[in-house]
């Protein structure tokens, strides 16, 4: 039962760790060429959801269907690296995972491994530097150069990735994921630790990825200025369950969501700092 305009369909996903149910019967769909945000309090199961999608965990129950053309790939049956290689799902990590001892450029070249490996004929053509391989290598460097320019790191292409400032590392990780030419980009808290200026840049980058690269984005984020500013759709998780799903304005005023963020007891007055985080007006009309 796959909705035609959905790129990704998550159906009845459940993930248990021993006695703990990190994700409990969650179903949702993500449309192609849209930014779908996944929000929820700490420990809600957001990262676990990504780990199921990208093959790091095998879901206990559930079906993860990704539409590629006329076929639907079942991600839960695929090995982790094949999900990136064949299904075209790329991701970033909550704690940045670059290759810190390799240069910025090399990070982006490693991301193009599959294409380059094929062009090098599993290293034979590469060892003798045949023209086929040289052309593919030039194309890969040009593609990397394009993304470096996009994220403003062209001048620092030969730096070790580990020596970059934090915000640049975050953007590099996104560019690296994009270098795998994905159809679905999963970003785990890309705005964490960014200053307001950097998070505005991030918004712009994500919109560019959606509009110009025609890539769908799944976005886990706590920073509501990012979430409310650019998402087409928001899914709210709490204790592993989906508690809301809709447009930003609908979700922002959903009493169930507000309660999940505030705790159980009824409150009329929302403390301003919490109001700021979830993006509601401090005094509701």
């Amino acid at each position, binding site marked *: 039962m796959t909705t035609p305009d959905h790129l990704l369909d998550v159906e009845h996903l459940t993930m248990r760790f021993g006695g703990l149910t990190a994700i409990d019967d969650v179903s949702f769909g993500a449309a192609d060429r849209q930014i779908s945000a996944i929000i929820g309090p700490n420990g809600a199961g957001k990262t676990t959801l990504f780990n199921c999608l*990208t093959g790091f965990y095998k879901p206990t129950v559930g079906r993860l269907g990704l539409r590629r053309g006329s076929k639907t790939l079942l991600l839960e049956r695929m090995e*982790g*690296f094949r999900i990136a290689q064949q299904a075209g799902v790329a991701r970033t990590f909550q704690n940045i995972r670059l*290759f810190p001892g*390799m240069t910025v*450029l*090399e990070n982006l070249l*490693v991301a193009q491994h599959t294409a380059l490996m094929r062009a090098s004929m599993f290293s034979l053509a590469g060892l003798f530097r045949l023209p086929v391989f040289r052309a593919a290598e030039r194309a890969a460097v040009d593609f990397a150069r394009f993304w470096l320019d996009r994220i403003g790191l062209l001048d*620092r292409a*030969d730096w070790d990735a580990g020596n970059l400032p934090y915000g640049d590392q975050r953007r590099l990780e996104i560019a690296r994921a994009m270098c795998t030419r994905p159809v679905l980009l999963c970003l785990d808290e890309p705005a964490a630790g960014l200053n307001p200026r950097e998070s505005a840049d991030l918004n712009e980058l994500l919109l560019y990825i959606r509009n110009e690269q025609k890539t769908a984005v799944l976005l886990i984020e706590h920073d509501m200025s990012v979430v409310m500013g650019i998402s087409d759709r928001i899914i709210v998780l709490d204790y592993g369950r989906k508690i809301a799903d809709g447009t930003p304005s609908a979700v922002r005023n959903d009493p169930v969501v507000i309660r999940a963020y505030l705790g159980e007891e009824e409150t009329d007055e929302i403390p301003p700092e919490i109001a700021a985080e979830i993006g509601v007006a401090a005094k509701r009309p």
Partner: protein
Amino acid sequence: MPTPVGAALRTALKEAAIAAGVALIVALPLVGFRLIDITGGVSIQTRFDWVVYGVAVVFIGRLGLALWRELRIPHARKAGEASSLAIFAEQIAAFTRQYSLYFGIVGAAFAFALPFMPFTDQYILDVAITVLIYVMLGWGLNIVVGLAGLLDLGYVAFYAVGAYSYALLAQNFNLTFWESLPLAGAFAALFGLLLGFPVLRLRGDYLAIVTLGFGEMIRIILLNWQSLTGGPNGVSSIERPSFFGYPFTAVAPEGKTAFHELMGLEFSNSHRVIFLYFLILILALITNAFSVRMRRLPLGRAWEALREDEIACRSLGINPTNTKLSAFALGAMFGGFAGSFFATRQGFISPESFTFIESAVILAIVVLGGMGSQFGVVIAAAFLILVPEFGRDLAQFRMLMFGFAMVAIMVWRPRGLIAHREPSMRLHPVGGPEAAKAGS
């Protein structure tokens, strides 16, 4: 407030007392008591005076060192700066890094000219061949440890597989060295795959222990499979190398021409040694060229990426198992080539040549030289082989010197002699935009 000198003295005294205490604990059982043979049994002799001298030397030595450090560079130390020796080592490393290309060219030119130098005799060439075998093994293991970051403590197993492959192929099937060489490499690579397949999902220490076990297994199999390997007696009278079919003998066997006859030279024993020297030199240079080139290919870059972060690799569509297996198998293949060479050079092999200590020495060469550094491997191999060789008169101290070198490197250059990593590809020329902050 104590004066600076007073404070320094206090620190130094404290350190010296601790060092002396440790020395006492160690020396008392080791030096203080000694078993001596007397007629009808053994008895214990005490040597407490030695213990006292030893502890005194440690105390004074440590006191002197600590005082020197406290008084001479107190500020540098406080600011967390490196000691002057470390700075010196860094300068040397920076120098070699800067001119590494020239070092490479000069080194290779010297290596090719060595057999024709006036001072070169057979002994020097023999030692040089040994050094080159270890350089080649170091470069081979560097693929596995330095690039792919897989700690392999059983590399000698592949060396053994290569050596026995050649010896047995030559003996049972009359294959020549050149026919056996690719087969020996293929066998070693196959063993690499066989070992790698089950164990490569293990990480770090676990992998190290399993490979260590594998190395011992191979040796024990060689020792016990009498019918095939000759057990502890090994394989002897292995076919010596010939110059593409022209043997290095004074009198050629029926129907063949000896090398000196072919060249119109006077027969000399040194021809064979010179030939072996060039053979290993070329094999080693091929190993080097191969790994330098692999580093710039997607597969080599994936090896390094795996060393850096396996999880990130998986998220980018790199198959970690196959990638690691390829590193393991290719590293093993070069071990196999080196093994074949070893067999043809010695003419005799036995399991004794392939003990764990060999693996340890090869690994030490890679680690001391600086993981992933081709040039560092040469320096470390030369050092680790030459020092014991020329220090033969001080044979009892060989292991001590070995240990001292290890400790010294780990203290002053924990990432190896030449720890610098040259990017596999640059976007800007060296010294281009913001190049100053790159690397390091």
